[in-house]
Structures are given as C-alpha cells and as structure tokens.
C-alpha cells in the first residue's frame, strides 16, 4: 500500500479529535481551540490551551525522534504571503465556524451538510488560488 503514512496519520488526527468528544462531548477543530485559547480564564479556554500545548509538544517529539521537515524548500515560497495567508486563514476559519479539522474532520464526521458545503468551498477556492499563483509565478 502506498498511502500508509497518510492513512495512519489521518487515524491519529481523527483520534485526537474524537477523544475530547468521547470524554467531554467537546466538538472542536483547531481554529476553535485557538479562539478558546485566547480566553484562558474560562474552563473551555484552559482546556484549549492544554490541547494546543500538546500540538507544540508533538512537533518537539517529531524532532526528538529525528524527523525533520520532509522538505525545507518551503522557504522558496516568498515571505510576503505568509502573514497575509495567516490572517486570512484565522479570520476565514472563525467566520465560517471551522477550518480543515473543524469542518473537515469533525463536521464531515458528524455528516453535517453545512460543513460539507464549507469543505467544498474552501477546497475549491484553495485549488483555484494555487492555480492562479502557479500561472503567475
């Protein structure tokens, strides 16, 4: 099988989303956690901070086990779109109520029609954006 890393990685992503669901009925994607984490005084906020801490720890573990980025060539992407992209990703995800994990994993996993629409829209727009960029550069 050629896609074992993708499939196992997806299972881990699904499990990381499903554990807070099973234990606490918490339905949240990463952008939802990120917004909650901005208000660490609340109960949900504290949990979100701990979850995001786990994400950073996973990156450190990934490095500890000798794994680096598959390809550091992403630096070829010029620096100016990074903050623009970050702003659009953060603002857009919260305006629509979810990102790749919130609408993608949790939303599709709950068979939510709204999330299906959101996933189709953001994937198509991302593909069109990539196409326009490649035509330009």
């Amino acid at each position, binding site marked *: 099988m050629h896609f074992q890393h993708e*499939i196992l990685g997806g299972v881990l992503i699904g499990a990381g989303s499903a554990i807070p669901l099973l234990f606490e009925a918490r339905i949240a994607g990463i952008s939802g956690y990120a917004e909650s984490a901005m208000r660490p005084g609340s109960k949900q906020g504290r949990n979100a901070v701990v979850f995001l801490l786990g994400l950073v720890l996973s990156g450190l573990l990934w490095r500890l086990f000798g794994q680096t980025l598959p390809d550091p060539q992403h630096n070829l*992407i010029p620096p100016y779109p*990074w903050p623009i992209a970050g702003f659009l*990703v953060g603002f*857009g*995800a919260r305006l*629509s109520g979810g990102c790749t994990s919130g609408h993608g994993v949790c939303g599709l*996993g709950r068979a939510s029609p709204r999330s299906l629409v959101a996933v189709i829209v953001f994937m198509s727009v991302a593909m069109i954006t990539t196409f326009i960029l490649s035509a330009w550069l």
Partner: protein
Amino acid sequence: MKNIIYLLSGIIFGLGLALSGMIDPLKVKGFLAVTTPAWNPALIFVLGSAVVVYFIAFQLLRFRKKSLNGEPLQNPSTRPLSIKLLLGAAIFGIGWGLVGICPGPAIVHMAFLDKNFALFLVAMFAGIELNARLPFTR
C-alpha cells in the same frame, strides 16, 4: 485528568499531522495543484481516514447519548447555511491556497522555529481575534 486528556489529544493530533505530511506546505500545495501533472492526491486519504474515525466515535456517543463525564451530546449542524459560512470558507481557502498551511500545522511548527511560520501564526491569531471582536461577524 482533564489536562491529561487534552494534552494527549493534542499530541496524538499533532503526530498525525506530522506523519501524514500535512505539516509540509509543499506536499499540501502538491495536493491543491489539481491542474498540474505533478498533482499528488495522497492527502485525501488523511481526511478520509480521520473522518471515518471521528464518525465511529460520534455514532458511539449518539448511542450512549452522554459523554464519559456526563455531558449531553450537542449537534450544532442544524443551523441553516449562512453568508458568513460561505464567505468565511472562501477567505480561508485563499489563505490555505497561498502557502498550503492551515491552523493545526501552523501550531505544530512552533517546534521548528521557522520565521515564515511564526509570521503566519501571529497573523492567524490576529485574524481569529479580529473576527471575535467585530460585531457583525458573530
């Protein structure tokens, strides 16, 4: 106990992002570049398997009606489609398409101390906060 649940969930989720290649912007760009001969559809398996795992957990919870700590299951999917959903998803799509990075990988990347990712992350939190503060986005 609660902290352990959320910490472990974050670690497992992040390892999944790393293993699957979602933290590699070039791989994500390769997935989004549908019109090129170099198109790499592998990442669709990431979404597919994650959705299957979450679907099973959700059915389990629907069957039990309550989570392990006794919280009732809420299903927020009954709200009608809104212009905010469509517009937000389109804005998110432009950002994702620009560099091939979505929120989870951006946070995992804090461990790699990369300047571009740091710029992305700060701007992402600014975007999240702006949306939370504008009166008409709620």
